[in-house]
């Protein structure tokens, strides 16, 4: 066992994407010894990680390792039993899920959670609600700056949709979209909240290889265009190894390895977790 589980192992991306200025800022996400128990059962324990600005990080592990639970902890859907989370240097402890989002974490869900009865563009506009300059009075009366606010919101929403070539679907009902488009819309909605990090929960689930390739391209484009960090849970190793700069492997709720894709690929503990233990006799 070479790798220890100290807290600062996921490196800043070594490529040129991190500018000098970024390095002086605190990392986007700093998680220290996070853990949660469900009725005596420890689901996640001692989870520590640092994610730099504009880093693409991967969270992998066998089924039931606690990956989605980590996302739920990061977004305060579950209140952590132990540990703390610093988002852009500020602690998220005691905040609601909504407040955590406003502090800068947006996410997608493993089982898609769109606002299925609303139109595609409304799904995006509702994501932008914090930046739409409409107070309650103007919502009721459609006066007091309503038209201007709606116009800006519409334009921005269409821009975002266009970024994923979905502008022509703006008026469609979100629930009626094909599967792949629904996944894309969920990412757009998350981006609309203007986050500093997006958590993607199995974004490639149910996609064919060409769709996955397109998704990889999109994830890179998101990072480069919006200058945000991305953390993703994914089972598709080609995607994870292809785009992630830092990878964290989870098994039975604990981090068993952290490092660059190459390091993870060679790590014997990871191989063991995925493929099972080699027989003693062969050793």
């Amino acid at each position: 066992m070479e790798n220890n589980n100290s807290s600062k192992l996921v490196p800043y991306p070594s490529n040129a994407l991190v500018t000098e200025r970024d390095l002086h800022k605190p990392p986007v996400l700093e998680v220290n010894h996070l853990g949660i128990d469900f009725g005596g059962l420890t689901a996640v324990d001692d989870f520590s990680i640092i994610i730099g600005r504009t880093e693409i990080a991967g969270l992998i592990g066998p089924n039931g390792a606690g990956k989605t639970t980590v996302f739920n902890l990061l977004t305060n859907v579950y209140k952590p039993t132990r540990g703390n989370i610093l988002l852009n240097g500020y602690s998220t402890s005691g905040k609601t899920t909504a407040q955590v989002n406003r502090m800068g974490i947006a996410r997608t869900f493993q089982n898609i959670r769109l606002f299925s009865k609303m139109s595609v563009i409304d799904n995006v506009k509702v994501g932008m609600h914090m930046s739409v300059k409409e107070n309650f009075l103007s919502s009721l009366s459609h006066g007091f700056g309503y038209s201007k606010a709606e116009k800006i919101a519409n334009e921005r929403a269409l821009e975002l949709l266009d970024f994923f070539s979905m502008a022509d679907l703006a008026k469609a009902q979100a629930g009626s979209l094909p599967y792949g488009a629904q996944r894309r819309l969920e990412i757009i909605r998350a981006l609309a909240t203007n986050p500093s990090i997006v958590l993607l929960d199995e974004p490639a689930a149910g996609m064919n290889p060409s769709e996955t390739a397109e998704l990889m391209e999109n994830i890179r484009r998101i990072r480069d265009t919006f200058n945000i960090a991305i953390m993703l849970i994914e089972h598709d190793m080609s995607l994870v190894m292809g785009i992630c700069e830092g990878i964290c492997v989870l098994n039975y709720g604990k981090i068993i390895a952290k490092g660059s894709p190459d390091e993870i690929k060679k790590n014997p503990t990871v191989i063991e977790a995925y493929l099972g233990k080699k027989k003693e006799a062969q050793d």
Partner: protein
Amino acid sequence: MTTFIQTLIDGLSLGSIYALIALGYTMVYGIAKMLNFAHGDVIMVGAYAVIASVSMASLPPVVGLILSVVICAALGILIEFLAYKPLRKSPSLAVLITAIGVSYLLQNLALLIFGSEQLSFPQVINLPDFAFAGVQIKGVTLATLVITAVIMIALTLFIKTTKLGKAMRASSEDKDAAELMGISVNRTISITFAIGSALAAIAGIFYGASYVYIKPTTGAMPGIKAFTAAVFGGIGSIPGAMLGGIILGIIEKFSQAYISTLWADAIVFGVLVLMLVIKPTGLLGKDIKEKV
């Protein structure tokens, strides 16, 4: 002191009736995950069935009582089959609205058949009154307490030990898994409705015997209060329903006796609201985490 004991016994008696109704709510909620709003009106049907068979058709009381229970059990199955089964996969809002529809349907059918005038419930339970340490206990009250206790023990044993009871528990935990284990979930749900409605019929009989007058809306209030009791005890939990029913009955009688008859209902509902706000899972209920 006499008033205190008298009130306590009255409360226990009313609480037993609530407990019987609450059992139906809690069993149906546990297995079908729906609030059967019409459950309270089954009590009214049970009471009217006795009136129709004993007072109107002059059948012997025992036949009337059995008939009442059978009719209600059949009604429970019918309601489930016609109104709730098509909505098994619908959102809870749709199911609740349908249940409200069923409740109104039963009330208005009773209104058309029996009229809006209240009818008096026949003397089917003829037991002498007791005098104990200066406290008058009606025969009906005692019968209510004893029979309820017997039913509750029997029901607990039924659910714990029989095959059908196991099927019920399994279906309430996980319908798909139960189906894969060879349990017919549809049949189990039907039987749950039948048992719940039969209990409601018994509650209706005791209610009629204690409060004498029956009208089409008779079931609504006890129904809602019994739901309160089920929630109070922890919905889905059978001992919880019993406990909740009895506590609620006692609270109601004590507020009537010591605070004000006018405020009694408000107090009972106030207890519900407080309970739901402070501990939505009730006294004995389990906390279910929403899956994200």
